[in-house]
């Protein structure tokens, strides 16, 4: 058993081993180790985009699967997301500098009258973990807040959260406002929150209901792939 506790020196691992170790360290929420490993890969002349996708995004994908399957719970996912964020902080300016492709952009917020924050923040963090740019509007958002953020940020995806049966109908108010402005189809609208379900999402005209943060990432990625394919096909 002593072998398992031997210190691993990150800088002595080859690229493949280090990448796998980073997946494990993300899983365990080891922030300092992630920061160290990101710097090592950059010193080894890895492209920032490769560090992001092969090490961080892939690691968070594994965290997402085990969260979805009820093996990891919110505390572990928060620790993993914090470790990922620390790595992202190093990569972000380099990614912008190198003009790396962006996965997509999402505006997300809890609807008016509802002050529940945790689930939405978890979705934000997991989306960032998957390489998305996320603009988190916080809680208690009016139609005007959403419309303003959409106009400014020009996101691919609009995410709305509600934890109360009394506030979830407000999602329809927002979607109806998008329709009235003729911009509904410019965005992928994803909704989530404890009392919601598939049927509700359909009834209010959303594109997808996301049961949890992991499903949100899967759904968003799928939609973005489809969008990119359409753009490629259409020229």
């Amino acid at each position: 058993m002593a072998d398992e506790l031997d210190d691993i020196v990150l800088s002595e691992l080859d690229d493949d081993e280090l990448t796998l170790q980073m997946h494990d360290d993300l899983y365990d929420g080891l922030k300092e180790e992630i920061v160290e490993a990101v710097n090592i890969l950059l010193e080894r002349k890895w492209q920032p985009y490769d560090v992001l996708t092969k090490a961080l995004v892939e690691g968070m994908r594994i965290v997402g699967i085990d969260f979805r399957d009820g093996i990891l719970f919110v505390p572990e996912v928060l620790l993993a997301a914090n470790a990922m964020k620390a790595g992202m902080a190093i990569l972000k300016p380099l990614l912008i500098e190198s003009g790396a492709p962006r996965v997509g952009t999402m505006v997300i917020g809890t609807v008016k009258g509802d002050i529940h924050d945790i689930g939405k923040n978890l979705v934000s963090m997991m989306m960032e973990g998957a390489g998305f740019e996320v603009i988190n509007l916080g809680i208690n958002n009016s139609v005007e807040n959403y419309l303003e953020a959409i106009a400014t940020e020009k996101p691919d995806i609009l995410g709305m959260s509600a934890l109360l049966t009394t506030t979830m109908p407000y999602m329809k108010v927002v979607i109806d406002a998008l329709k009235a402005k003729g911009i509904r189809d410019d965005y992928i609208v994803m909704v989530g929150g404890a009392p919601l379900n598939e049927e509700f999402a359909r009834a209010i005209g959303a594109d997808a209901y996301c049961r949890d943060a992991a499903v949100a990432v899967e759904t968003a990625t799928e939609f973005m792939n489809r969008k990119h394919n359409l753009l490629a096909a259409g020229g």
Partner: protein
Amino acid sequence: MRAELPEAELARLVEHAVGGETLVAVVTLPAARRGDGVPAWLPTGELLEPVGPLTHADATAAFEEQIAALIEGGADVIWAETMSSVEEFGAVAAAAANQSAPFCATLSFDTAGRTMMGVTSEAYAALAAALPNPPLAIGANCGTGASDLLRTVLGITGATPEAVVIAKANAGIPKFVDGRIHYDGTPELMADYARLARDAGARLIGGCCGSETAHIRAMRTALEDHTPGPRPGLDEIRARCGDFTSASDGTGDTSGAESRRSRRGRRRV
């Protein structure tokens, strides 16, 4: 000048309504103190340390303020529900102890049989029993339907048979009909759930989201006419109240789940 606290007001109104004869329990949802030092009477969405910014001391202080106001208003019992973390429950228990207030506490087991923070029914029962001031009653509320909640009750009564156990299930799941939210659980289903909850060992049985007067009436009638039966098995629960939302309740051996991922060894253990 101190403004009238809503909890005290509520407790007084309830006590007035029942003529001071019935036990008054006022439900208080998880509360937290905002960063600016203003007591907040609604959940702020803050997570407690170590995963969030809210300290045990601040959470306890916020709960204490509510409890003091409720007791002042005439509440006999403090009732905290829809909690998800051990830390949050710990703050409620500490606040109740500081105020010498009897309390009941239920968690919401809505994620693969556990709470969203990963707490199992067994772990919760053991934790509550080990307190210097154990709750009068423990149990589950809200969550993901009657079947899952009954499975949680079996977990709690199995772990601590001597505990007084609370069961408060939602009346089905919410559906959006003609612009309004409507829960699809029928009074008949809730009546059968109440019988099963009793047989599972629950002694305080009620409904949560979507439970209207018709549901509560059906449950009461069912319990009054009920001849207690043996502890129901999972198959019986499934047959009478519908399928579970997850294969297991998250208790017991999780090594199978762990083995999905081979460890590479940890640094700085």
